[in-house]
């Protein structure tokens, strides 16, 4: 038991903090901090700076750009990145398809894809969910039929995040419809988004933004060499990948930043003749939220210190579940601080006296309802906890 970071970890933290706050352009970090839409170019620019410094994919195998960090160091890296409002390396690249290819791809695929994936030269998107499947991934209906050297893909995917920016997609497809267990007949294919037969329809979200898409496949021909790993083992790769998805999803640093912002705003707003931050109920609410967040952060630290074997710790379900709840609580706090100002949501800068944070508060709050749904909904996390941990 030891409260303090070791001198090495302390130095590591300082190094990360300095890098993130000095090497990533302020304008990009301001966009993230203000919850503005971050452009594709900004994402790419930030990730390339990180990658050049070896900070984009530290959890990958060393030969593909990974670093031999402890779980605690990875945790510090991620938290400091969030605290500094640095756009995180694109999850589809860094946490999903990259590790899958590194673990299950052949040498040719590794060489072809991994450097470009780490550097965001390829922007990947995910083709997992389908309109009638949702959390029940194994029921997917998109099929790939072998025809000569190609797979011919037909079907539909949905919730494809930032698919509009994507160069390539990694896709779960049914390759053996006769498999006894429906999980067994699934394979993982990758292909460019501009392959003939691929069309994309953006879905408007409640905040007026477009970040998810439907993707349709009509006789899309994919060369056989684009199969990742073995045929009909896609389910295993998906599980591997989704395990990674849960890591780092506590997003404590991002929530800390929101709460710190909330306090600043509340100090500047007047309510009943005094700064809102002096309102006792508001103070108590913030104190309780901060305590919950501290408990979550400490739990994340405990989980990383106990997960040396690299396998997803089932306790990481706690992080996803509680992390999403606290992100949502922070967005709700911001809406309540904005109060009547929150109604000025879509005013242009020159048409309003309401500050930007107050205008974006409710759209952000509505948008953040998603964080308890995607990446394994909170219901899925409770199922994992009840089943895997409590044996129920």
């Amino acid at each position, binding site marked *: 038991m030891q409260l303090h970071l070791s001198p090495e970890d302390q130095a590591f933290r300082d190094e990360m903090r300095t890098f993130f706050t000095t090497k990533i352009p302020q304008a990009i970090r301001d966009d993230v901090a203000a919850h503005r839409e971050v452009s594709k170019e900004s994402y790419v620019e930030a990730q390339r700076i990180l990658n050049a410094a070896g900070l984009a994919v530290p959890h990958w195998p060393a030969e593909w750009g990974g670093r031999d960090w402890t779980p605690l160091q990875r945790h510090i890296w991620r938290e400091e990145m969030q605290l500094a409002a640095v756009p995180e390396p694109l999850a589809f690249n860094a946490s999903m398809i990259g590790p899958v290819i590194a673990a299950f791809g052949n040498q040719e695929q590794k060489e072809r894809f991994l450097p470009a994936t780490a550097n965001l030269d390829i922007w990947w998107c995910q083709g997992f*969910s389908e309109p009638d499947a949702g959390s029940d991934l194994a*029921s997917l209906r998109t099929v790939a039929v072998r025809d000569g050297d190609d797979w011919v893909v037909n079907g539909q995917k949905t919730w494809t995040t930032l698919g509009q920016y994507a160069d390539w997609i990694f896709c779960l497809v049914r390759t053996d419809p006769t498999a006894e267990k429906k999980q067994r007949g699934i394979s993982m294919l990758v292909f460019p988004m501009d392959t003939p037969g691929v069309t994309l329809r953006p879905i408007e979200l409640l905040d007026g933004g477009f970040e998810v898409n439907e993707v349709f496949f009509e006789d899309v021909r994919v060369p056989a060499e684009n199969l990742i790993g073995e045929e009909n083992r896609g389910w295993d790769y998906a599980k591997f990948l989704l395990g990674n998805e849960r890591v780092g999803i506590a997003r404590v640093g991002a929530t800390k930043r929101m709460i710190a912002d909330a306090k600043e705003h509340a100090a500047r707003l007047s309510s009943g003749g005094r700064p809102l931050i002096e309102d006792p109920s508001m103070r108590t609410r913030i104190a309780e939220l901060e305590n919950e967040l501290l408990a979550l952060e400490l739990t994340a630290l405990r989980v990383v210190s106990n997960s040396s074997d690299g396998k997803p710790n089932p306790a990481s379900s706690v992080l996803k579940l509680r992390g999403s709840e606290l992100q949502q609580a922070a967005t*709700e706090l911001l809406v309540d601080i904005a*109060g009547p100002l*929150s109604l000025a949501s879509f005013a242009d800068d020159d048409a309003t006296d309401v500050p930007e944070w107050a205008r974006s508060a409710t759209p952000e709050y*509505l948008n953040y309802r998603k964080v308890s749904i995607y990446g394994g909904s909170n219901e899925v996390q409770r199922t994992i906890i009840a089943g895997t941990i409590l044996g129920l």
Partner: protein
Amino acid sequence: MDFTFDTEQQALREAVAGLLQRAYDPEKRRAVTKEDPGFDEKVWSQLAEMGVLGLPFAEEDGGMGAGHAEVALVATEVGRVLAPEPFVESVVLAGGLVADVGTAEQRAQLLGALSEGSSLVVFAHAEPGSRWTPTATGVTATRSGDGWTLSGTKEPVPSGARADVLVVSAAVEGGTGLFVVRGDATGLTRDGYRTHDGTRAARVTLDGTPAELLGEDAGDRTAAIELALARATVAYAHEAVGAMETALTTTSEYLKTRKQFGVPLSRFQALTFRAADMYVSLELVRSIALWATMVVDAPDSTPEQVLAAADRARLQTSKAGRHIGKEAIQLHGGIGVTAEYSVGHYTSRLTAIDHLLGDGAWAADRLARTVDAHPYVEALPA
């Protein structure tokens, strides 16, 4: 004590429900709210024809002489389909102020035109530096000859860009006065924008803008403003109840029809129990909204009682709206956060209602001030 509506009231409800349900399904609402003014002028006219826009006003002012029970019925139907017409904002809030404070002439003119649907009147009150207060400080009124001029900024003003007439609160000697400003007045600038719930609001800038005093004398109108805000709060509670009801039925329907793992979602007890809890929240807030309307309508209610009833309705509406709004989305999953599906818009509107006139925490703080003034809260007046 009687919670039921009489046959005349029921008929009104059916007429309004018929009109609004024909006018709006999620698709049509999305189309209407995409374009300015964010609502359907034709629907507004039809509501006027039906007498709905003059419901709470005296017959001699051009209104229907009905009570807030009727207002509540309409607001519920508005909420049920998320009709974007500014019924509460215009009829209950702005109209209510004119009815309470205006001279006979002003009432006849402004309320008559409002009731006919020919003039949209809204209340420009919120100021960027203030938070749910019945007073004004950012806009000041100055005497100018026989009349007045106003200067300062009001924001956000619901339907402020589209309004034909603005009732504006402004700092006067000794308090807050109320003024009437025409949409074409000089020195009036209005920057309109879309709000997250699909309706519209605006920044209203006044710069030496000529205005007419509302009412006879230039005294402090804070009490009248408080009362009008309280009545609007109660009407919003009903609008919210209508919205929550649809959010719940939509969610129940989804649980019944949507399949996962080969069975309908309604086979997952953890989900159906949460729907049951939504129902509990809905019934509780419905009760308190109806009660608050009865308090508003009771002839012997004091302003303090009306204000307290509004705070009680507001607190419960805030809690229930957040609970139901969040759960409706969560139980839907991904589709719940899309703009293409209806349910998230209900959450959006519930969030807007919660923040327009004061949220639940704000009401709780007010109610907390009087907890030791009574042994317990009496639902029935003595």
